[in-house]
């Protein structure tokens, strides 16, 4: 009996070793870590971001990748908690992965900037580069700016400027609603600043801070907006806080316009449905119809390619593609994946985005300079969002020039940069 078991165990062991050795002959790739929430209230966002990043990465890989190697994504779950993200960062550096992407949640990003900076200072032989694709709090490239952090998306200040510039002349009273953390508070402060600067005729009739990811029924908030008499609701709520807000707003039949930062993100169009039609404006860097609007065949093909994978979401973050293109270009220019050399190569790099506009990675604060747009949720459109029949149509554009603001960043540069 025991003899037979031993024989069986030996067979299993040998089979395991044979199967395992096959993996050793794998192609060498450039690993990139992606830390995001894959469980909890914001899991849908982590999932959507992963789909979009993968598509952009595959696109860059198809054009040769960098230094003849392809990029490979390795994911880690942070449950949108800074503490969990730092634990994941530990795994990233233990696996000698040279680049980490984190973008869902400015609260996590703030912790990541500190974590990466400290790690790189103490471990100059095992550094990691932090690419931020969508954590938008302006502080990350101002007070908290760091040499190892690069942001590939317009920050809060640039987006609020786009939104305020895009407000119509008839708008006279607005209500502010934002999430109660670094990002939402930054939006509120910048909104007040830019309204005073560009549109002193507009009156702010109410302001609200909503706890992050906790409120499930926004009807009371909508009632408050109604009693304030506002003509427009300006909100940067994202994720479930946006989707549920829109649900309540649409259900109540409130007759106002919504100026949002997140209506185009995963779940937004589904939450709005018909009730959001011709009522909701989003501030975005791109949308699925812009390629067709501009007559840009390459952009349209890119969107069609993503839709063909049946992702269930739109692809508004065209900056993800710009990010991978910039990274590949920088690695090729540096001739290596060493974070210090790549960082130096990234500074000042200029790469055209999906719509042909040249994006620049500013050296002073590692903030990308790009144009930004507002779009209306309307129909008919060529490419609808999340099978609702409604889609995005560009309303206004703020140029790179409009959105280039001076920075107070004074980053400590490591030796050799």
């Amino acid at each position: 009996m025991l003899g037979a078991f031993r024989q069986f165990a030996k067979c299993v062991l040998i089979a395991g070793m044979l199967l395992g050795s096959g993996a050793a002959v794998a192609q060498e790739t450039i690993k990139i870590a992606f830390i995001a929430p894959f469980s909890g209230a914001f899991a849908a966002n982590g999932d959507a971001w992963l789909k979009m990043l993968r598509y952009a990465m595959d696109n860059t890989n198809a054009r040769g990748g960098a230094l003849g190697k392809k990029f490979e994504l390795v994911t880690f779950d942070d449950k949108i908690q800074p503490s969990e993200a730092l634990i994941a960062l530990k795994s990233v550096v233990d696996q000698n992965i040279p680049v980490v992407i984190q973008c869902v949640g400015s609260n996590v990003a703030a912790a990541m900037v500190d974590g990466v900076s400290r790690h790189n200072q103490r471990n100059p032989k095992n550094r990691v580069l932090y690419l931020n694709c969508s954590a938008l709090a302006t502080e990350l490239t101002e007070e908290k700016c760091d040499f190892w952090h690069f942001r590939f998306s317009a920050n809060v200040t640039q987006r609020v400027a786009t939104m305020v510039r895009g407000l119509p002349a008839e708008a006279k009273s607005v209500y502010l609603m934002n999430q109660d953390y670094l990002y939402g508070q930054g939006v509120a402060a910048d909104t007040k600043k830019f309204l005073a600067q560009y549109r002193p005729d507009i009156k702010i009739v109410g302001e609200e801070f909503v706890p992050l990811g906790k409120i499930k029924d926004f009807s009371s908030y909508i009632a408050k907006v109604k009693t304030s008499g506002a003509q427009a609701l300006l909100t940067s709520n994202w994720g479930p806080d946006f989707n549920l807000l829109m649900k309540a707003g649409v259900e109540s039949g409130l007759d106002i316009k919504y100026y949002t930062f997140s209506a185009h993100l995963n779940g937004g169009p589904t939450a709005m449905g018909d009730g959001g039609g011709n009522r909701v404006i989003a501030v975005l860097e791109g949308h699925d119809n812009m390629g067709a609007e501009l007559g840009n065949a390459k952009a349209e093909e890119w969107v069609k390619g993503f839709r063909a994978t049946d992702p269930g979401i739109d692809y508004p973050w065209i900056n993800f593609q710009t990010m991978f293109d910039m990274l590949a270009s920088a690695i090729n220019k540096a001739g290596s994946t060493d974070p210090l050399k790549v960082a130096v190569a990234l500074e000042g790099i200029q790469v055209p985005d999906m719509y042909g506009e040249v994006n620049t990675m500013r050296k002073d604060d590692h903030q990308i300079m790009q144009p930004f747009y507002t779009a209306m949720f309307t129909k008919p459109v060529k490419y609808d969002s999340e099978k609702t029949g409604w889609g995005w149509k560009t309303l206004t554009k703020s140029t790179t020039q409009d959105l280039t603001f001076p920075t107070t960043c004074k980053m400590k540069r490591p030796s050799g940069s």
Partner: protein
Amino acid sequence: MEIVLISLLNGFVYGMLLFMLASGLTLIFSMMGVLNFAHAGIYMIGAYVAFEVSRMVGFWPALIIAPLVCAAIGAAIEVWGLRRTHHNGHIAELLFTFGLFFIIERGVQMVWGMLPVPYRVPTALDFPLFNLYGINFPAYRGFMLLIAGGMLLSIWLLLTRTRIGLIIQASLTHPNMVSSLGHNVPRVFTMVFAGGCFLAGLAGVIGGNYQVTEPSMAAALGPIVFVVVVFGGLGSLAGCFIASIIVGMLQTFAVVVDFSLSDLLGGLGDWIGTKNLLGEILAVPVSRIGPLLPYAMMVLMLLFRPRGLMGTRDT
């Protein structure tokens, strides 16, 4: 004034939804001493099953089928799971339901994915019932109140006016005597567990399109339901009802309340100012800490009256 009326209605609807969930939980806990951590998971299954059934057949069949499916799942959990862990004591049963919750959550994610599913209100009920100061009160919320009220009435009738209800009530306090009298007490327990899950499933059908149906919905509502059960007291359905309404109202009205502790303190608040830590804490308006209040309430209740509002046993 308008805002008070609207918040009153919304708070009542939310409270009734909480009651539908919490009533099943408190029944199970009163009868069997098992704190069913998987209860919110059953609620989520109810919502997802209702979504699938309403896609295939329609909402009205889903209203009946989904709770029945949840009841069947509940019965299966009780017969094959809880009955076996019962020998090992309450902690074992607790851990079992706790693990079950994770399995259910992950299972739902695997089957339906991470994104919210478009489980919408049926078009027959998707109209404004009445207009209160320019805000529509959706007919679906009225429907929710109807279902919850009907459910409350039927449970009360079942427990007090039917034979099986009397047996259930007796098994609550004297299971051995009831067993000696020839009743099948284990089967009573299975029926109660299945009944509790039926209620959770019904809550899922109703609540799934009131809120968004997504894999994190169970984790979002789970803690609040426990607050309700603890606050209302174990073993008391009436206490559970009162607690649900209180928690529902509290969370809804907290949003409306814009003043802070420093406003209440008046001159003293101004003197403290906002430049220091104490001033900053006092200046936080109640609307920003709304979700915190039910938990604060529960802590206070546990400190001063662990039995809950109308409980018959200590928590």
